[in-house]
């Protein structure tokens, strides 16, 4: 297992946006992650691969502050975090944004609320500046996402949107808050082909914008296309890491199938 060295210029003040060391996670008796070392370099796109239940979602929930690991260390920009005080809010403060699989938006809520919930623009006593939030939301909808002439505005509810549009909102939210690290958990699941292209274009935009990304995806061709480095998880441990140049898509596919088969046999 090679410790990948992402391309970095000498001038940067940190090496890794985020680095996990010897992270363990157990839910009751279930060991979801064991002894995981995982790092994302500055301006690096890391594809995270693995079967269902390999621990991908658990891993990114730890990175994004939703779950607290049972053991291990998290470093953000090469500084050790105090895990007792790490939370989603803290992650946002550290400019780590996450688009969780299928459930990042409140379905019955209008889009302007969805864009700002958790870090509302508030005036005195915690009252929301609704006018300002709606203004920014409408701008975002027009510019960033290109919802023009769909009859969709900041007052539309999430229910009114297609799957791709929902993903677009969640991603636009991450962009708006200028994350250094954007975590995407299967953003293309249930999307039409044209919408998948939009998401991949967005991931490339993240790279071009000098930001980093953890990209979880079942479709190997999609990940392979955009990732700088691929990390494979299996049953809660990292079982492989490759820079894109080190492995062909065919080899990667064969490896994933082998893992899947091995798992099936182990399970029976």
């Amino acid at each position, binding site marked *: 297992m090679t410790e990948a060295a992402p391309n970095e210029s000498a001038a940067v003040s940190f090496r890794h946006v985020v680095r996990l060391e010897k992270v363990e996670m157990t839910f009751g008796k279930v060991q979801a992650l064991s002894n995981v070392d995982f790092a994302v370099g500055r301006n690096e796109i890391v594809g995270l691969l693995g079967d269902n239940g390999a621990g991908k979602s658990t891993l990114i929930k730890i990175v994004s502050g939703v779950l607290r690991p049972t053991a291990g260390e998290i470093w953000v920009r090469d500084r050790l975090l105090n895990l007792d005080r790490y939370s*989603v809010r803290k992650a946002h403060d550290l400019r780590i944004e996450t688009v969780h699989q299928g459930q990042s938006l409140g379905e019955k809520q209008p889009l302007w*609320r969805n864009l700002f*919930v958790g870090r509302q623009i508030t005036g005195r006593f915690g009252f929301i500046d609704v006018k300002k939030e709606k203004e920014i939301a409408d701008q975002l909808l027009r510019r960033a996402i290109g919802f023009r002439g769909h009859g969709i505005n900041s007052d539309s509810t999430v229910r009114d949107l297609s799957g791709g549009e929902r993903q677009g909102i969640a991603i636009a939210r991450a962009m708006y808050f200028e994350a250094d690290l954007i975590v995407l958990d299967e953003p293309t699941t249930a999307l039409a082909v044209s919408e998948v292209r939009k998401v991949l274009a967005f991931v490339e935009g993240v790279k071009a914008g000098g930001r980093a990304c953890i990209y979880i995806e079942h479709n190997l061709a999609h990940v392979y296309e955009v990732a700088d480095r691929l990390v494979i998880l299996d049953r809660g441990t990292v079982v492989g890491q490759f820079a894109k140049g080190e492995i062909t898509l065919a080899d990667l596919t064969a490896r994933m199938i082998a893992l899947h088969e091995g798992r099936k046999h182990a399970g029976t």
Partner: protein
Amino acid sequence: MPAPESARSRLLETEGLPIMGVLLALVIVFMIAAPDVFLGYRIYMSFLATVPPLLVLAAALTLVIAAGEIDLSFPSVIALSGWVLAYFTHVLGSPWLGLLLALASGALVGWLNGILVARIGVPSIIATLATQFLWGGLTTVFSQGLSYALGEVDQYFLWHLLVGRVGAFPVQALWAFAVAASLYLVLNRHRFGEHLLFIGDNARVAEVVGVNVQRERTRAFVLMGVMAAFASVLLTFENRSFFNTQGGGYLLEVMAAVFIGGTSVFGGKASLVGTVAGSFIIGMVEAGLVATGLQGFWVRAVVGVVFLAAVIGHILIEEPERRSVFVRALRDRYDFVRKSSPGGGSTERRGAR
């Protein structure tokens, strides 16, 4: 054609408008059926004196239900806080201290509910059912099953401040409207209200977007407890007496007021304007029916009809998919609907999108 359609649907979406219409219609029906009573002002003053506790309770419960929870323990807070108010006002000689302790007792009950639900994870319907028994029972123990007459309570300034009369106008109505307006702002304009809506919509989403779900849930129950205590103070002062069973009749009426008002039983969506209208509908039906000469026996049946009509109405207005299913079913059954409304077909197809 799209323009008038969207104007119409915008009008329908104005918060609480349909249920305000129902309230108005009810008043008009009563005016026609019992003009002697409903064309005078006295009956309305009477409503403004009796509805406030119900309104305060329903307004607070609206926020709890918006968060996808329920509180069944508030009838016991009505009893407990009423006893605290009466007892400590008497013992300490200060109604202000009595009020303060009454509100504190409500907060304590609410906080305990919050701990049970948010931290320990007991479903709120069960946790608050249990605490309803607990606090109701303890109130009976504390009061030794006695009722207190508070005949001389109007010597206090506080009494006049909370439930006095300005001319014929009952002051408690102002307090109740103030509570409802404040909670409207909290729900629709404050961070806390938005958090409750997201928790009610989907607690896992709320969590991943950075809402402290445990803390906000607990706060919702504390708010409910304090408001129930305040309602109890209004009730106890207005009645000038404390009964250890006071509040028992409020449970179903308050829930009916909230749901008639269009708040979703599934959480994530709530209307305080609707709750205000719902509270007055519930508060008016009894007096109205008696005044129109119908026997009191009819009250509950009529409430049931209004309730059902309101709930079905809300579903049809607020969930276009269901509306179009409903309309289609009607159309299949009664073909004349299509003939009598030529524009109907395309309208409904839009709604179904």
